[in-house]
């Protein structure tokens, strides 16, 4: 196994986290909205499926993803035909982290949708503005801080991701070796203590920064909806 480069691992973790926050947004928005605003058969099942990565062992989630996306997997087979190979690539690292972060992402967005009084949208409709434009002019701007908070949580979760990434993306230096995997690699290396310290410091800084940003965005969201603690 090649020695882990801390700078490369931190850079890769940042990239994975950012891609997770960006690519996961449409799914998180749609699922958060569906679970908060609509009633439909199978809603409880969908809610459970969305939350399942939180309670399943990450290695199991990674295994299931590998079963789906591997050469003989349901989706992987179709992708192979198109010349796309996902496992053990950077895309696999992003996908694994995105699936693991999705429960938090959806939960955060669902919470802000539930906090938003739907009558704001109704007022907009009665003023002659149809739903799609109302979503852009009222819903989205009102929920922007909360959506940002959800994205920050997903980003932070991606920084800490280990098990599913290890199974689906492996531990390839410069391609899939994120902070968590680099620390794991260095723990077994005889002269890895110094690099490990750097990685731990970087990890702490990134995690604390993300959580501080999440807290600030959540406060901004409460102010925006004119909510106070306890409302």
């Amino acid at each position, binding site marked *: 196994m090649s020695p882990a480069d801390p700078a490369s691992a931190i850079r890769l973790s940042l990239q994975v986290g950012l891609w997770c926050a960006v690519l996961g947004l449409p799914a998180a928005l749609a699922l958060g909205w569906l679970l908060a605003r609509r009633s439909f058969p199978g809603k409880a099942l969908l809610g459970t499926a969305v939350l399942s990565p939180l309670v399943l062992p990450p290695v199991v989630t990674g295994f299931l993803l590998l079963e789906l996306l591997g050469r003989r997997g349901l989706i992987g087979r179709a992708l192979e035909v198109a010349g796309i190979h996902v496992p053990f690539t950077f895309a696999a690292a992003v996908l694994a982290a995105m699936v693991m972060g999705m429960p938090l992402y959806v939960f955060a967005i669902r919470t802000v949708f539930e906090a938003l*009084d739907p009558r704001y949208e109704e007022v907009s409709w*009665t003023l*002659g503005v149809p739903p799609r434009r109302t979503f852009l002019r009222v819903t989205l701007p009102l929920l922007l801080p909360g959506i940002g908070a959800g994205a920050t949580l997903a980003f932070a979760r991606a920084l800490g991701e280990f098990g599913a990434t290890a199974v689906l993306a492996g531990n390839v230096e410069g391609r899939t070796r994120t902070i968590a995997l680099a620390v794991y690699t260095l723990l077994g290396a005889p002269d890895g203590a110094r690099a490990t310290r750097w990685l731990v410091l970087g990890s702490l800084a990134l995690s604390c920064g993300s959580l501080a940003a999440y807290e600030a965005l959540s406060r901004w969201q409460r102010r*925006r909806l004119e909510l106070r603690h306890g409302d």
Partner: protein
Amino acid sequence: MATEWRLELVLDIRFESCAMRLELDSRARALAIVGPSGAGKSTFLRALAGLERRARGRIVAAGAVWQDDACHIHVPAWQRRVGWVPQDALLFPHLDVRRNLGYAHPDVGEVQSMAEWLEIAPLLARRPRRLSGGERQRVALGRALLSRPRLLLLDEPFAALDRPLRGRVAARLASFCAERDIRLALVSHYEEDVATLADETWMLAGGRLVPLQAQSVAGGEQPRGLAAQTRNAACPALASRTRTEP
């Protein structure tokens, strides 16, 4: 020239613990709905606006069918040209007063004159959270009027205004609506508002609409008696879900 106005509706609204059957046929320019708290007055306005999904039946306004469930017709709220002013104003918190007023038609001149007309011109740059209840209600009224509605739906529109201001705004609103041929449906507990604005009054109680004489409401005798009689007939489901009705 004023168009022939007639509002006809037959609506069934079912809740978990009660049901309403609303029947109304009115040619009034301004209609007031009075009744005890929790009777469903706000629900009635929401049904007119096309916002009450549980309302089933038929609504025809000025010859246009807004809703007819037998024929699967439901004109959506954004096509009805109704200006809804909810009791708690519901100003968009991310927009200042100027942008709230101009939400439907951001015409600078119109926004300015509306603000002066409603005595809120100094507040144009303020965010809703820095407004008093009365200021919010006036902004909500201006926002609805600037959307050029055919029918204005007012839910306790002046409840937070002091008496002199309420009188001024109600009188101006009456002449504004008359000039522009805007029809009114008003829910209010204030007899003065009803007397100033409405030329026909209906009592909503026990899940039914009953026509009343406007003079009696202004005089305050009959509705008080009726309201007292029907207080216990209010629908508990509505009383609990109409968050802001006093």
